[in-house]
């Protein structure tokens, strides 16, 4: 293992990265692409088996749609039920360019906002298509019985979200993700009932199987019985979510992992822009060392809450006793036009900044106030309760503080990962036959995701994109007959077993979590809200050391022959320990600031993110070499035809 990742990665002007975009004008691109794609007749579809890993919005919607079209599907997920995929936790809402509010919204505006919000690091054609199908998603979900919020007259209700200037966010109280996922889950279960979907819950994909260079299956562990199983398909869909848990503390569910993506990466799927992570500004602060998970408070709180810290770091008065003159409403001060509503990355970075200045509040000093005093004075407590009652209740449940009386304390937390496996316009990765959907791919959000757009993307990919584009693979390639006995399956299975045995054989004295925490802390400090050349360099030296200690000191009791949650966790942490290195390398190589990626070396005089379009207007796609060896960088240059590149400003 080479200890030091070289700063300048081997680069290749890529001929591998064919985006397969249709070209021409964006408005007609998707229609033209669909028209040009091969078809598979309904009675031929049943000859194919599609393997779908993951049952979040992306996986469940894809499986339901494909099965309904006549394909045979095998669907697996880690949880005991597909309904528990991490998508269930999304709160705020889902965007769609319906223009129901008559505020002059359009597909183009949604597209533009998404591209701009992503700081011009996403592919135009993908993002445009996302905006284009967004309306159909809402129709589909309503028809499934998703109980969206409604107006008195019975029509669907919308709200503004994340600083958007139009109200295009559809929501179901504070549980939009839950309701959308339950809709997709019900559609999936209908296909299970019809016998078109074989459901494999409590399965963790531990390797990808390629036959003749084409993705033809996965090796998975049955998390209940411990069995190692082979699953085959004519195409494999990875819908396995994001890798935010590389930071240990995040708002992601505990089982969220990079394992599926990482194993595919090791088998040849490039990973794009891994350093693009989103840090959400309004989360409940860390309370202590035993904390296992961070909780998000919906961004909508910033509509009425005012963010502040005391002007002086020595001011230890209780918030109510701090007079107006001694408070610093720093967002309002620095960004007079957007104020508390600046985008997530800006809000997060500023919170970190004031805390770094020693002005953080609360026992940890790593928090800022989100104060509703003025809003309550203005609108009355009842109005505030009607708007945020459930959020206030959740806050009180966790902190035992009453936010009607005391300002909330919030701090940024890792929330979403824009980076992911590289895919082309068809959502196919660099491994033929391997499609990647939802948060697991890198495609639509560039360097920063707008609120309420991840749900949209997951469902767009699953309901409306992959069901068509998969035909390019199935009809376009000659596929050998599926054979689970093929040596490729044998080799992958042996690799998986070997790895589990190695983990169990360490028999050290430290818990898995202790390594995960250690890695997470390092990542947070050096690859979190702001990043420096020096910090990343240190990080790149630190990660291999932690990895080495892990493989020498981790203690996993029991065996692999039955349910063993520690073993599951260990496998995921082991993969994070490899993945993190690539992520840091990506962050180091991109010496510009863009979206959620803030390099301190690259900022304007006012301390705002400074993009460098001349050097970094590309997608960085990494090709795996070997563990501990720097990965090979491939670049997909981004062309902007429909939008003008501009520096974001929220002053």
């Amino acid at each position, binding site marked *: 293992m080479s200890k030091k990742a070289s700063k300048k990665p081997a680069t290749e002007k890529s001929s591998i990265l064919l985006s397969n975009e249709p070209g021409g004008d964006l408005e007609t691109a998707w229609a033209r692409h669909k028209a040009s794609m091969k078809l598979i007749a309904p009675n031929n579809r049943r000859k194919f088996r599609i393997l779908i890993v993951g049952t979040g919005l992306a996986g469940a919607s894809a499986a*339901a*749609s494909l099965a309904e079209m006549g394909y045979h599907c095998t669907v697996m997920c880690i*949880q*005991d*039920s597909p*309904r*528990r995929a*991490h998508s*269930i*936790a999304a709160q705020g809402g889902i965007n769609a360019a*319906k223009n129901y509010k008559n505020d002059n919204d359009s597909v183009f505006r949604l597209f533009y906002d998404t591209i701009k919000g992503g700081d011009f690091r996403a592919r135009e054609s993908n993002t445009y298509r996302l905006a284009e199908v967004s309306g*159909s998603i*809402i*129709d*589909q*979900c*309503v*028809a*499934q*019985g*998703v*109980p*969206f919020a*409604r*107006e008195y*007259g*019975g*029509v669907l209700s919308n709200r503004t979200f994340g600083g958007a200037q139009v109200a295009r966010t559809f929501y*179901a109280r504070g*549980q939009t993700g*839950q*309701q959308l996922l339950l809709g997709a889950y*019900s*559609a999936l*279960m*209908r296909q299970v*009932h019809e016998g078109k979907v074989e459901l494999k*819950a409590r399965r963790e994909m531990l390797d990808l199987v390629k036959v003749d260079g084409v993705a033809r299956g996965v090796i998975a562990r049955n998390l*209940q019985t411990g069995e190692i199983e082979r699953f085959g398909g004519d195409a494999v869909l990875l819908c396995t979510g994001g890798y935010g848990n590389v930071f240990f503390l995040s708002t992601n*569910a*505990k089982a969220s992992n990079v394992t599926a993506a990482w194993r595919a990466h090791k088998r040849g799927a490039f990973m794009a822009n891994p350093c693009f992570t989103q840090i959400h500004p309004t989360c409940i602060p860390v*309370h*202590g060392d*035993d*904390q*296992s*998970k961070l*909780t998000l408070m919906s961004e909508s709180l910033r509509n009425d809450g005012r963010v502040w810290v005391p002007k002086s770091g020595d001011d230890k008065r209780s918030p109510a006793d701090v007079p107006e003159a001694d408070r610093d409403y720093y967002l309002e001060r620095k960004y007079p036009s957007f104020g508390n509503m600046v985008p997530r990355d800006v809000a997060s970075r500023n919170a970190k900044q004031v805390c770094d200045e020693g002005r953080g509040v609360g026992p940890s000093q790593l928090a800022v106030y989100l104060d509703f005093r003025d809003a309550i004075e203005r609108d009355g407590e009842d109005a505030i309760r009607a708007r945020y009652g459930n959020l206030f209740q*959740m806050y009180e*449940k*966790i902190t035992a503080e009453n936010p009607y009386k005391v300002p909330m304390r919030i701090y940024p937390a890792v929330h979403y990962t824009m980076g992911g496996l590289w895919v082309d316009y068809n959502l196919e990765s660099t491994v033929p036959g391997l499609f990647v959907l939802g948060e697991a791919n890198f495609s639509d959000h560039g360097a920063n995701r707008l609120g309420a757009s991840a749900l949209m993307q997951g469902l767009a990919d699953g*309901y*409306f994109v992959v*069901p068509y584009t998969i035909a390019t693979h199935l009809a376009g390639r000659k596929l050998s007959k599926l054979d689970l006995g093929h040596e490729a399956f044998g080799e992958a299975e042996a690799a998986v077993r070997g790895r589990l045995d190695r983990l169990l054989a360490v028999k050290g*004295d430290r818990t898995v*979590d202790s390594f995960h925490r250690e890695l997470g802390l390092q990542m947070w400090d050096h690859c979190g809200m702001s990043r420096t050349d020096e910090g990343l360099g240190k990080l790149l030296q630190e990660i291999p050391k932690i990895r080495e200690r892990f493989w020498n000191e981790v*203690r996993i*009791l029991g065996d692999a022959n039955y*349910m063993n*949650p520690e073993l599951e966790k260990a496998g995921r942490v082991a993969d994070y320990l490899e993945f993190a290195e690539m992520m840091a390398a990506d962050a180091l190589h991109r010496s510009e600031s863009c979206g959620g990626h803030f390099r301190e070396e690259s900022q304007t005089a006012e301390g705002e993110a400074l993009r460098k379009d001349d050097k970094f207007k590309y997608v960085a796609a990494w090709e795996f070499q070997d563990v501990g060896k720097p990965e090979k960088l491939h670049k997909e240059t981004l062309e902007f035809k429909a939008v003008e590149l501009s520096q974001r400003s929220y002053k």
Partner: protein
Amino acid sequence: MEAKTLNLTLKVWRQENADSPGRLETYEARDISPDISFLEMLDMVNTGLIKKGARPITFEHDCREGICGACGFVINGHAHGPDRETTVCQLHMRSFRDGQTLYIEPWRAKAFPVIQDLAVDRSAFDRIQAAGGYISVHTGSAPDGNCLPIGQERAGEAFDAAACIGCGACVAACKNASAMLFVGAKVSQFALLPQGQPERDGRVLGMVGQMDAEGFGACTNEFECSAACPKGISVSHIARMNRDYLAASIKKQD
């Protein structure tokens, strides 16, 4: 806020696997901060067990914010613990007193066999859902979302029913291990919405049939389910299902 810490005695159900007999084991949880969650407390106990070389306690969890429905066990006879409308992952240690003894047991029901320690197999819920818990709409065939106006109140009621997280606490709390609240909530959500009408009769017959086939008990109207439900789902949804079932049975003789 320097709150003092708690010392607790835990009596936890330990069971190697589905076929082995289980027993209660006693553990001490020391110096527990009242600000941590119940699952974080178990994490700490588990760290101690691992250090000692003993198999850590298996319990299910994922989101740890009360929405995925993965977590759940019984604490002193209360599904998800003593707090109302709270999952165990959201339950904080400040709800307990120093020196307390806590009995921690898995959901108990024939239809939810124990897999290991506090983890049970709830796939019966998935099969009930598959037996009719959906609206048959082909992807892409949906009319515009605003074609079907739905009054705010009705939409709200449907939402109340749809809020179920499928945790199984209702079954655990019911003296008959009945799944009526879970099934009633799903049946109700669709029964309340215009989209759900075409398949309304078949749905309730199918789901109730599957519920019985899974070996859940019948309801004797104890209303314990609703009290234990972390989402406060009302027993009025059970009543709606009863009504619907009666109506559907009369209409659909076979």
